[in-house]
């Protein structure tokens, strides 16, 4: 087969869409209400993540922390299996994991709801391991 035939005329369009795919995906997911939108603020020593969750309170949201990422998920209502009477396994309706540009100090992370907006403050962990030594003389 002629090699030219292998060129997909749609590839250019696909590439274009790909370049924006993340943006499109985010917009689509938002439109479908699949996960809540966030605003992120950054300075040298901390990251602030605001999550828009109108009508929600602390008991509706689960927050988990990795050294360099934070995950937010809804906490499904506890339901019991009608047959076994045991707590039914429920999947969160949505979850979001945000990668962070630096390691955070897990002990100093602070999260607070105010008027339907969850603010998570993530202070940067102290730099360890590398110490600069002044050379004398």
């Amino acid at each position, binding site marked *: 087969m002629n090699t030219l035939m292998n060129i997909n005329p749609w590839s250019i369009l696909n590439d274009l869409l790909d370049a924006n795919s993340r943006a499109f995906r985010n917009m689509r997911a938002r439109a479908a209400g699949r996960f809540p939108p966030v605003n992120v603020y*950054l300075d040298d020593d901390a990251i602030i993540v605001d999550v828009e969750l109108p009508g929600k309170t602390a008991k509706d949201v689960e927050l988990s922390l990795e050294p360099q990422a934070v995950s937010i998920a809804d906490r499904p209502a506890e339901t019991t299996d009608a047959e076994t009477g045991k707590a039914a396994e429920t999947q969160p309706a949505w979850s979001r994991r945000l990668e962070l540009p630096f390691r955070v100090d897990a002990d100093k992370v602070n999260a607070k709801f105010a008027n339907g*907006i969850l603010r998570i403050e993530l202070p940067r962990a102290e730099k360890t391991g590398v110490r600069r030594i002044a050379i004398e003389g």
Partner: protein
Amino acid sequence: MNEEKYIVPTATFQERPEDYELKILVPGVGKAEAELHIEGRTLTLKTHAKYQNPAGFKQVASEFERANYAMSVDLPEMADTAALSAKLENGVLTVTVKKRVEKQAKKIEIA
């Protein structure tokens, strides 16, 4: 927060046997920062929260807007605008309006 700028909030309107319930999403707005007016059957909401980005921080992701909200809605004719109650909780404003009680049956003239 840009005080001149208003966005129309997401809202749902529900009819129940005895009343109507209007739910308006106003995340970021506290009770003291929302104003509700009724004129005739037109209900108007305007908020005036003063939000500022954290000082010294650079915004690196912006998926929702921190602006004030404004909207107005005409309530149904059956709504008793005197029996209106509102509460704002966790960024959700819930307005409940009782339906008018029509005590007298309506007589229909036969032509």
